[in-house]
């Protein structure tokens, strides 16, 4: 018993006297919410530039929050270093609080940096213990540091605004794909699979900005605009939002969003019928036809009619049957369009065709693995779509106003 007490005292003294090495009080932290990575030439030498957004707690939470002040809710600071980690530490020079990036929500890679290859960026992101695999990844049109200057509209912090757009709103359009670091890494390191990242860009909105923003950024706002397609570790090209829907159909990741069908009614007029995608699945199947590799893509889609412009009698099953056919064709055409962009134009295997071949025919894959990037653009792809309209929302036939 005596020994126990001595042991306890010993342990406590060992712990308490030398001090608490890793202790950091919350108020001594600079909580990084977004990271931007750019590349710039400085004195003839190419150097990475790290931009971070740091939350200002006093402007955000708690009862003492003082939102009426002129200061923004987040602090934008960037620094150039020899390497990215070096740049991160250089930021310490300007930060009174210790930068902690374990709460970082997103990494925005500048377009220039992405086009130049993400190998070094990738090592930084993977090796850094505070950067989590759940971090959202973006490519920015133009420099990331410029994009990050935009002031958020509804949320307090830009990072919140972007991630909410990405996660909460964009599924309602099926025009972009949320990619986190894990998925990005998987695609980068898996042979026969190329990565995509959502593109983020600033626009000048037509509406007047309703907030008292700093003069410089006035009028700018943020939007997500399609996908950036990578080939190996370089940005190969951009895919516009309309085509992204086709890509999402192929990999079975559509969630919601509209497709407008043009339906020719019996009276000969054209009705524009908007359908809202509800459920869809896509399957990529490598097959051998006459000894050569082909990809078969099978898409099952479902949708509801949400708007009819014109006099199409969508209340009748016959019309719906026609609509099903037109809907299938439409899906097929947008899928093929995105296939065309990725496969033919940029030659990047964002669908993971190679991966499916690997999984299905590992022996064959071993033969062709080296030449895959040459084979891929030439692989014939057939798209089969089975699309159905399930319901017509709360009314059937369109109202006729007389």
């Amino acid at each position: 018993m005596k020994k126990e007490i001595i042991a306890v005292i010993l342990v406590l003294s060992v712990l308490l006297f030398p001090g608490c090495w890793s202790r950091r009080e919350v108020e001594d932290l600079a909580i990084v919410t977004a990271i931007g990575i750019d590349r710039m030439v400085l004195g003839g030498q190419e150097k990475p530039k790290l931009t971070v957004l740091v939350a200002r707690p006093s402007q955000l939470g708690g009862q003492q929050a003082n939102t009426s002040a002129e200061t923004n809710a987040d602090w934008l600071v960037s620094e150039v270093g020899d390497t990215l980690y070096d740049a991160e530490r250089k930021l310490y020079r300007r930060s009174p609080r210790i930068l902690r990036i374990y709460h970082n929500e997103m990494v925005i890679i500048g377009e220039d940096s992405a086009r130049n290859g993400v190998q070094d960026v990738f090592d930084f992101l993977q090796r850094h213990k505070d950067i989590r695999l759940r971090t959202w990844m973006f490519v920015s049109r133009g420099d990331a540091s410029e994009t990050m200057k935009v002031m958020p509209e509804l949320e307090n912090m830009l990072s919140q605004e972007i991630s909410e757009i990405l996660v909460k709103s964009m599924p309602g359009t099926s025009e972009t794909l949320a990619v986190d670091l894990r998925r990005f890494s998987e695609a980068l390191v898996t042979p026969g699979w190329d990565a995509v990242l959502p593109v983020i860009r600033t626009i000048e909105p037509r509406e007047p900005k309703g907030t008292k923003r700093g003069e410089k950024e006035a009028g700018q706002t943020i939007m997500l605009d399609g996908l950036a397609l990578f080939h190996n570790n370089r940005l190969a090209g951009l895919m516009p939002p309309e085509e992204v829907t086709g890509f999402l159909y192929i990999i079975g990741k559509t969630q919601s969003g509209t497709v407008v069908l043009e339906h020719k009614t019996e009276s000969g007029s054209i009705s524009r019928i908007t359908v809202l995608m509800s459920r869809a699945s896509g399957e990529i199947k490598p097959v051998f036809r006459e000894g050569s590799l082909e990809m078969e893509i099978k898409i099952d889609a479902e949708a509801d009619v949400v708007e009819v412009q014109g006099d199409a009698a969508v209340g009748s099953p016959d019309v719906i049957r026609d609509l099903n056919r037109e809907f299938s064709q439409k899906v097929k055409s947008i899928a093929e369009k995105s296939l065309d962009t990725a496969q033919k134009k940029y030659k990047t295997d964002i669908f993971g065709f190679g991966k499916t071949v690997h999984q299905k025919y590992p022996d064959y894959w071993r033969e062709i693995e080296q030449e895959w990037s040459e084979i891929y653009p030439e692989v014939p792809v057939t798209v089969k779509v089975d699309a159905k309209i399930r319901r017509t929302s709360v009314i059937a036939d369109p109202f006729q106003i007389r």
Partner: protein
Amino acid sequence: MPVLTVGDRYQDVWIAAALAAAMGGINSFLLAIMAGLYRGQTVLGFLEELGAGISAKVVGVVFTVFGVHVASITLRDFAELMVTYFYEETPLIVFIIVTALLAYWLAYMGIEVIVRVAQFVFPLIIGGIILINLASLNFGDPNNIFPLIEKGAAPIIRGGVTQWAFFGDVVIWFLLLPHLNSSVKKYTFLPLSVLAAGLLLVFTVFSIIWGIGNRVAVMRIYPYLSLVEEISVVEFIERVEGFFLLIWVASNFLKITLFLYAASVSTGHLFRLGDRRAVLLPLTILAVNLAVILFDNYLQLRYFLRPEVYAVYMSIIQLAIPAYIAVLWLVRKRRTPGMAE
């Protein structure tokens, strides 16, 4: 769990884990049968009964060294994770000393208290791991496990042997079995527990491959921790690495305790000490020192845990010694019939 930090990784690693579990199960079944022969003695006492006094000493020394060595490796491995992931600025030695002190205390209290603590902690550890694994199944891609057996049987066997080496820990039950209640079913309990641990391992490895894919896992030193990072249940239960830390502390602590205890039993027997607890503190201090000085850097430790080194090392303890005892016993049995009863 250290098995997840080393060795080759490919999508079939869970098959290797299953193989390792099966091998470990068979292995431990043999050990249990042999332990049944001892009739309430430790392996050392049994060797002496067989008349092999000198080899009893040798085996005793081997077990002592082995116990302290594995305890120190575990201490180091555990502390390295702490420093890498959770406490950058804290010296490594703090974690080693605190954990070793706790393990010393528990080993000092004896096998009864060890078992009770284990009874309390094990459900928490296993429950925690299963929860993490289940939570990780809702992301990731089940196709990650394909293609099965891509590179033939060789890497699977290699991986299986690597992982089997970690089940080699069961050999210390040679020293502990006699202390257990005789009502425990000696023949089934050890293999069953190894198989259960193996199943858990298979499930865990499977979750890693499923959850983050073997190609990301292969880059990571602590793939399981990366899996834990990814967990998000209803966007609220996120960032649960802290709980993983708790599981990690508890399981390593138990392992270190068992090895220290086994080493002290072995030493106590070696020097015919009335009270094995007398040597416990020196052994603990030795383990702490070894943990610090054995490896210059973490990469050396990782290299040591590679199959070429660790599996060979473990085979000596795990196969050679039991085999030697079995041969000895068979020889003696032939010479003096009726002894086996």
